């Protein structure tokens, strides 16, 4: 039965997190933007304490065995949206595993989930991250060159990863881990790709560079070099069989399964920025006595009213696509197409909404006195990371056309 009633656990959580966003995030938003690479320990420690106390736990969905409908991904999407309303860069510093934990969730065995994810419940805050991109391998993930070679009870990893979100906080500042995508057979392309957990403190893993970015500056974007990095054999995610299967696309499929789970969550973050923008625009207009007359036909509306309604259409329709994608994930329905659709739409929506907001409010929004110019900068990453808008269009197109990656390149 079609229903848009927000489940009460989500409603309660949103109220709580909205307070966090208003009091812990917004007040330091500008400072963190202007002090790139400063670590927001106050926020990290606060969130860690709050999440432990409420057993909200890891950013990865909890597989609690309880009665009632599954809400894990829906709760997560709402959490991410609300925190990103506060500050999208700070949200990416939230302890609890991030994309690293999501990869463990999507591809790990129950034993691995227990072993790698329990650290997020311990006393000190911990972050996790995922490393896919390499200097020569961006959207074309199957061309990664980082290698994993088996040596008895170990894997030896070599290679260079770039653009690792929260790499510094996961490997240097806390005792977290990075999920490294590497190839066990460089000649077999995507079939050889496997995810490996490399824990902080492992000899041979080094953070070599922190990027300076257009936006989301509170979040570190690291280069991670693996030099003869030896990790236990059991750190390959998935069953031991995964290591042996060569002719299949198991590894690549694991990466794609991770993206099916994480893309709507990245979209949720975009939606937080978009909602913050629309709300502020409406508030500033209301201060000038401008309210939106939703009942009027379009040709009777002012340009400003049309702009705001267009923004709201983008915002709401994109958010509903995100909700649908995470709802499907919670129902254990295949959501690859919807996950990518939500990313296409959310990436588009947040970039357009923030661009148009700055145009609409002119000098007021272009000035750094307000956060609108920052949100415009923060927004753009959502059309790039976790699959660019173009790659996600490709995924959607292949799904709707029933084409393989060979048929639609």
């Amino acid at each position, binding site marked *: 039965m*079609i229903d848009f009633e927000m489940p009460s656990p989500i409603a309660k959580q949103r109220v709580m997190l909205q307070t966090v966003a208003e009091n812990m995030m917004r007040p330091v938003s500008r400072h963190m933007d202007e002090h790139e690479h400063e670590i927001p320990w106050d926020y990290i420690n606060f969130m860690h304490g709050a999440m432990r106390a409420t057993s909200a736990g890891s950013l990865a969905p909890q597989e609690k065995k309880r009665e009632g409908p599954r809400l894990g991904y829906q709760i997560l999407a709402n959490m991410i949206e609300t925190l990103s309303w506060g500050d999208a860069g700070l949200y990416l510093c939230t302890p609890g595993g991030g994309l690293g934990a999501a990869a463990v969730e999507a591809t790990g065995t129950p034993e691995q989930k227990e072993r790698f994810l329990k650290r997020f419940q311990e006393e000190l805050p911990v972050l996790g991250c995922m490393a896919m991109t390499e200097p020569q391998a961006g959207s074309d993930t199957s061309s990664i060159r980082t290698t994993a070679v088996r040596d008895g009870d170990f894997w030896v990893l070599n290679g260079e990863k770039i653009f690792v979100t929260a790499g510094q906080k996961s490997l240097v500042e806390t005792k977290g881990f990075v999920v490294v995508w590497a190839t066990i057979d460089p000649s077999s392309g995507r079939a050889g790709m496997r995810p490996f957990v490399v824990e902080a403190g492992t000899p041979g893993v080094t953070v070599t560079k922190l990027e300076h970015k257009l936006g989301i500056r509170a979040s570190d974007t690291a280069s991670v070099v693996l030099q003869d990095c030896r990790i236990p054999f059991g750190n390959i995610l998935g069953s031991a069989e995964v290591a042996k299967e060569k002719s299949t696309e198991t590894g690549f499929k694991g990466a794609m399964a991770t993206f099916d789970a994480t893309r709507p969550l990245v979209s949720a973050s975009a939606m937080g920025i978009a909602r913050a923008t629309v709300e502020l625009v409406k508030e500033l207009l209301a201060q000038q006595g401008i309210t939106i007359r939703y009942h009027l036909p379009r040709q009777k509306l002012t340009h400003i009213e049309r702009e705001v309604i267009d923004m709201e259409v983008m915002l709401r329709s994109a958010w509903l696509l995100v*909700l649908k994608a995470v709802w499907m994930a919670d129902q254990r329905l295949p959501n690859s197409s919807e996950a990518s659709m939500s990313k296409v739409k959310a990436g588009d929506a947040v970039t357009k909404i923030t661009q148009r907001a700055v145009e609409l409010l002119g000098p007021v929004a272009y000035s750094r006195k307000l956060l609108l110019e920052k949100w415009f900068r923060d927004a753009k990453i959502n059309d790039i990371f976790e699959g660019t808008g173009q790659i996600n269009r490709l995924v959607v197109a292949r799904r709707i056309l029933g084409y393989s990656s060979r048929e639609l390149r």
Partner: protein
Amino acid sequence: MYSFEPSEEQRMLIDAIHKFAAKDLREAAHEADESGAFPEALIGKGWELGVVQASIPENLGGFGEHSAVTGVLAGEELAWGDLAGAMHILAPGLLAFPVLAAGTDEQKQKILPPLLEGAYRAATAAWVEPFFDFDPSELRTTARKKGDAYILDGHKCFVPLADRAEHLLVFAAFDGRTQAFIVPRTTAGVTVLEREGNLGLRALPTFEVKFEGCPLPAAARLGGEAGFDPLLLLNVTRVALAGMAVGMSRAAFEYALAYAKDRVQFGVPIAQKQAVAFMLAEMATEIDATRMLVWEAAWTLDKGLEATHAAALAKTGADDMTMMVTDRAVQILGGHGYIREHPVELWMRNGRGFPMFTGLAMV
């Protein structure tokens, strides 16, 4: 609790409508567009699907419960078959739904059972006026009080089936706000003018209608002396139209997708070119995104919550989406899309109309 799944019952209704839409409406659509009308038998068959009847309670001649969500699901599916056909089949709802939502008990008893029991009987509503700045909240058609009665004056256009409808629900400014009046077509001062010729919806007979000093009894006013909240019905028609826009756009998308997989240029199906594939991906995304807006707005109506905001978003989103999707469907077919043998040009002509179709559909 969020859910994005129609109920089992709704599924069955959608399946039944889809069969009719695919077999009957779609087959007849081209001919109806050229000749200007669907065969009456086909409209009768569509009526027997019971979309309108199932939304009206048993004691008023129907056999179900009103649900805007079910209504938009049905509307999407019918409009997938053909928009003009869908509007024709559902036209009795233009009178029935406002009466159900806002009518007095007397009006319900008098209007609904004869309209709903038995074979198709045309009914209609007159909202739109022939001015570029038409605004449902500031109508030029007026009603004024004369003793116990009302006198109606004005000029309407886009009135479907005005030549045969027994009753017209006429929207007019009364006392500074929009109100509606149930007007028998035979009332003195009602003139149904020549049939209109429009860019789209050519299979749906629509008319200009003039009202000159039409005398109406007090009982003709929708909701009686108290009247009704015009925003409610505006929201209802916006949501209904948005749902139909989704259905028609889906038809155009599916047609263009099948064509793109079949049409070979440069040695490969054009769907294998990113320029085409990306257009299709965006069409699919926008259709689904808009569908979610429509469902949410319909759900808001069903909950009895203030729906002006949700309805405005659904309608605005749908108006833009349907123009984008139908335009691209023509573009993907290229020269063939411009030829009337393919239905995409028809969908594009219909698509342009949605912003001015106020009142042409209700749920």
